[in-house]
C-alpha cells in the first residue's frame, strides 16, 4: 500500500523531471523568468516525491514486507533494525534509488542557492542535471524498480549478504555515491556554460566546493571500502585491483587532476579546454564506476547481455560522451586561452605534470580493468590481468606524484628563483638521502619501496614546513593586536583555510604513502595446531587456548581463542571466528586483528578440522594503521578547505 504510493511518486517525479526540462528549454528560448521559476519549484517537488519513494521502501524493509521482491531478496525477519534500514542500498535497485535521492537533493540546492550568482547559466545547468535525473527515474520505474512486487509472497526473506553486515560496508556505498553524484554538479555547470556560450571562470569558482565535496566523499568511500575488505574478506589485504575497486578509483584519479588543474585556470586563466575534458572524463567515469559494479558485466559478458540495465547504462555513457564532447568541439573557439610565457620551474608546470601523472594512472587502471572484458566479449578468451601489472606501472608514477606534491609548495607562479629553490630543497633532499640510506641498510627493500619511502619523506618535510610557515608568516593585521592570545591563536589557525586545507590533505597523502610502503614487508603463513600447542611467527608466539561457540541474533559463531605471547609474556587473546548464517550457505570469516602503530597481527580462522585441530592464516602487515590514520588528515583538511568561500558567493 505505502509502496504503491512510493511507486506513484516515482512516476510523478519522472513526469515532472520531463516537465522541468521542457519548461527550462522554453524559458531559455522565450527568455521567460516565470518558466524558469516554475522549473525551480518543480525541482523541489521532485525531491519530495523521490524522498517519499525512498522512505516507502525503507518502511517496507522495517515492516518485513516480503511482497516486495527487493525486500525479500535483501532482508529477513531476523536482521537487526540498523541493517534493515541500510539494506535499502544492499542491492542494485535500491542503490540507484539512493543515487537518485542524492541527485534530487543536490538539484534542489542548486536551483535555489545559485539563482542569483549564476543566473545566466543556471537554466542550462538545471537542464543537464534534470536529464541525468530523468535517466535514473526511467530506470527506476522500469528495468530496475526497487518497489516491484512479487507473488507468491514468501514468509521469509533471503537475508542480507552477511558480508554486507558491517558498519564499513554500510557507509561505503552512500559515501561513494555522494562523491559520484556531486561530480555531476561541476559537470552540469561546465555543460551549462558551454550551452550558454558564457565561458568565464564563473563555473569553476561556483563549483569549487562541490568538487572538493565530491573528492572528499569519494576518497572516504574508497578508504571505507578498503577497510571493509581488510576486516571482512580475510585475505589479509585492503586493495586487490579488483574491477569494482578500480571502478571507483578511476573517477577519483581524474577528479583529483581536475581539482588541481582548475586552480591553474582560476589563477592563470589557462588550461580552459583541458578542464572541460577532465570534468567530462570524471563524470563519465563516475557513471562507468556505477555501471561496472551494477550491470553484471563482471560476472561474465554473457550475463551482461541478458540484463537490461547494462545496455541502458552503456547507451547513457555513450550519450553523455557524444553530447559533451560535441558541445565542447562546437564551442572550442571560445575557450582558447592566450598563451602566457612561463619559466620551466613554476607552479603551472608542476600542475601540468601532476595532471599528466593522474591521467596516465587512470589510463592504466582503465586498461587493466576493461581489457579482460573486451578480450572476452570480442575474442571469447577468458583472461585476467593480475595485480603485478598495476603495481609495476603505478609504483614509479606514484613516486613522481608524491615528488610533485612536495616540490609544488616551493614553486611560485610564472617563475621561481633558482637560488631560492635550491635553498628550499637542500635540507629535505639531504634528509631524504640519509633516511633512504638507513632504510636500505636496515631492510634492503625492493627499489619501489626505497623510492616511494624516500620521496614521501621529501614531500612530508616540505609540506610540514609550509604548514608551520602558514601559521607564522600570516602575522595578523595590526587591528588584532589588542586581542587576547587565545583569540589571536584561534584567528591565526583559522585564516587562510584554503591553503591550510590543501597542505593538511597533502600531509594525509604522505601518511598514506608511508602506510603503503609498509605493504612491501607483508608476511603470511598458514599452519595447523592442536589444543595446548604453540606456533611462532615473527615476534609473536601463538598458543591454542580453546575453541568457543556463541550464538548471536542471526548467526552461530565458532571461534578459536588464541593467546598471543611476545617475549614470553602474554599480550592478549585474539579470537578469530567463523559465523554461520541460516540464510546463507557460506560461512563468514571474522578475522581478529591486534593493531599497533608499527604492525598489525592479523589472524583468520581457516578451518576447525575433524581431529580437533585448527588451521589458521596469519598475516603480519606493517604500518597499516597509517592508511586508516590518513583519514583524520583528510577530514580536517576538508573542513579547512570548505571554509573558503569564493568572493562571488560572499557578496550575496
Amino acid at each position, binding site marked *: 500500500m505505502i509502496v504503491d504510493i512510493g511507486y506513484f511518486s516515482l512516476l510523478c517525479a519522472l513526469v515532472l523531471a520531463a516537465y522541468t526540462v521542457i519548461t527550462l528549454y522554453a524559458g531559455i528560448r522565450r527568455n521567460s523568468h516565470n518558466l524558469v521559476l516554475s522549473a525551480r519549484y518543480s525541482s523541489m517537488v521532485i525531491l519530495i516525491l523521490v524522498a517519499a519513494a525512498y522512505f516507502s521502501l525503507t518502511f517496507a524493509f522495517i515492516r518485513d514486507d516480503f511482497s516486495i521482491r527487493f525486500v525479500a531478496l535483501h532482508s529477513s525477519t531476523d536482521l537487526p533494525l540498523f541493517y534493515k534500514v541500510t539494506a535499502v542500498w544492499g542491492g542494485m535497485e535500491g542503490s540507484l534509488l539512493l543515487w537518485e535521492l542524492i541527485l534530487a537533493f543536490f538539484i534542489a540546492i542548486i536551483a535555489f542557492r545559485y539563482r542569483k550568482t549564476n543566473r545566466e547559466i543556471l537554466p542550462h545547468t538545471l537542464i543537464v542535471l534534470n536529464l541525468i535525473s530523468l535517466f535514473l527515474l526511467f530506470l527506476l520505474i522500469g528495468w530496475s524498480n526497487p518497489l516491484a512486487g512479487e507473488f507468491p509472497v514468501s514468509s521469509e526473506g533471503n537475508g542480507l549478504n552477511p558480508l554486507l553486515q558491517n558498519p564499513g560496508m554500510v557507509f561505503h556505498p552512500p559515501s561513494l555515491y555522494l562523491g559520484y553524484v556531486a561530480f555531476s554538479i561541476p559537470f552540469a555547470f561546465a555543460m551549462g556554460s558551454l550551452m550558454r556560450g558564457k565561458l568565464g571562470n564563473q563555473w569553476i569558482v561556483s563549483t569549487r566546493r562541490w568538487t572538493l565535496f565530491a573528492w572528499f566523499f569519494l576518497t572516504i568511500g574508497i578508504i571505507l571500502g578498503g577497510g571493509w575488505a581488510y576486516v571482512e574478506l580475510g585475505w589479509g589485504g585492503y586493495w586487490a585491483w579488483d574491477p569494482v575497486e578500480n571502478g571507483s578509483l578511476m573517477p577519483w584519479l581524474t577528479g583529483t587532476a581536475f581539482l588541481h588543474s582548475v586552480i591553474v585556470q582560476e589563477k592563470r586563466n589557462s588550461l580552459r579546454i583541458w578542464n572541460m575534458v577532465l570534468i567530462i572524463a570524471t563524470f563519465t567515469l563516475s557513471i562507468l564506476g556505477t555501471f561496472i559494479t551494477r550491470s553484471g558485466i*563482471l*560476472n*561474465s559478458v*554473457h*550475463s551482461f547481455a541478458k540484463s537490461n540495465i547494462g545496455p541502458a547504462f552503456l547507451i547513457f555513457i555513450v550519450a553523455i560522451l557524444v553530447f559533451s564532447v560535441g558541445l565542447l568541439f562546437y564551442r572550442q573557439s571560445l575557450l582558447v586561452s592566450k*598563451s602566457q610565457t612561463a619559466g620551466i620551474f613554476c607552479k603551472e608546470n608542476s600542475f601540468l605534470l601532476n595532471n*599528466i601523472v593522474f591521467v*596516465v594512472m587512470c*589510463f*592504466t587502471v582503465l*586498461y*587493466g580493468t576493461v*581489457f579482460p572484458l573486451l578480450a572476452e566479449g570480442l575474442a571469447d*578468451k*577468458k*583472461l*585476467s*590481468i*593480475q*595485480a*603485478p*601489472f598495476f603495481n*609495476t*606501472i603505478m609504483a614509479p608514477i606514484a613516486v613522481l606524484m608524491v615528488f610533485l606534491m612536495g616540490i609544488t609548495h616551493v614553486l611560485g607562479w610564472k617563475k621561481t628563483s633558482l637560488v631560492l629553490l635550491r635553498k628550499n630543497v637542500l635540507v629535505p633532499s639531504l634528509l631524504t638521502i640519509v633516511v633512504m640510506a638507513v632504510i636500505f641498510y636496515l631492510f634492503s627493500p625492493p627499489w619501489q619501496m626505497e623510492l616511494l619511502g624516500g620521496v614521501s619523506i621529501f614531500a612530508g618535510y616540505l609540506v610540514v614546513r609550509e604548514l608551520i610557515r602558514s601559521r607564522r608568516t600570516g602575522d595578523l593585521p595590526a587591528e588584532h593586536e589588542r586581542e587576547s592570545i587565545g583569540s589571536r591563536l584561534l584567528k591565526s589557525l583559522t585564516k587562510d583555510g584554503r591553503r591550510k586545507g590543501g597542505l593538511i590533505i597533502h600531509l594525509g597523502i604522505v601518511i598514506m604513502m608511508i602506510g603503503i610502503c609498509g605493504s612491501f614487508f607483508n608476511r603470511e603463513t*598458514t*599452519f*595447523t595446531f592442536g589444543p595446548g600447542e604453540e606456533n611462532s611467527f615473527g615476534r609473536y608466539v601463538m598458543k591454542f587456548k580453546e575453541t568457543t561457540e556463541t550464538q548471536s541474533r542471526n548467526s552461530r559463531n565458532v571461534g578459536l581463542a588464541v593467546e598471543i605471547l611476545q617475549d614470553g609474556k602474554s599480550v592478549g587473546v585474539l579470537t578469530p571466528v*567463523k559465523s554461520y548464517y541460516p540464510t546463507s*550457505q*557460506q*560461512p563468514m*570469516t571474522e578475522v581478529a586483528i591486534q593493531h599497533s602503530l608499527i604492525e598489525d597481527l592479523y589472524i583468520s580462522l*581457516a*578451518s576447525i*578440522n575433524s*581431529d580437533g*585441530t585448527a*588451521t*589458521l*592464516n596469519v598475516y603480519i602487515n606493517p604500518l597499516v594503521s597509517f592508511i586508516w590514520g590518513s583519514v583524520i588528515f583528510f577530514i580536517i583538511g576538508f573542513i579547512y578547505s570548505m571554509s573558503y568561500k569564493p568572493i562571488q558567493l560572499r557578496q550575496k
Partner: protein
Amino acid sequence: MNKKSLKFLIGGVLIVAVIVGIFVSVSSENMTYYYTPTEILTHPEKYADKRIRVMGLVEHDSIQWFSKETKLIFKISDEEDQILNVEYHGARPDMFREGQGVVVEGKLQGNSHLAATVLLVKHSEEYKAAEHSESKDSYIKTMDL
C-alpha cells in the same frame, strides 16, 4: 598548423607511444589466460614452466585434506572428463567441496599434475542449473571470475 602545435603533437604522440609500449610489455607479462583441463592435458608440453590458471569442477571422491601440512590434494575436470591432479598448499577454503567450480593457479609438474599456489572457489548464478544435468561447460562459462 603552426610550429607550436606541431611540437605538442609530436611530443604527445611520443608520450603515448612510450606508454602504450610499456603497457603492452608489462601487461603481457602479467596476463593469465584461463584454460580447461582438456586444453592442458592434450598439449602439456606447451604449458611447461609457465604460470597457468585452470578452471574446472572438483571431482567426486578426490579430495584429500592434510591438515597438519595444510595440503589439499584433489582432481578437477571439465566437459571432456579429462582429469587434472592438483596439489595445493594453504588453507582449505570454506566452500570447497565436490562438484564445486574452482580456479587454480600454478605450474605444471609432469604431464597431469599441477602444483597450485592459488585456489579460488567460484560461484555461479547458474549453479543449480548445472547440478541438474546441464553441461559442465556451460557452468564453467558462467562462473563468476
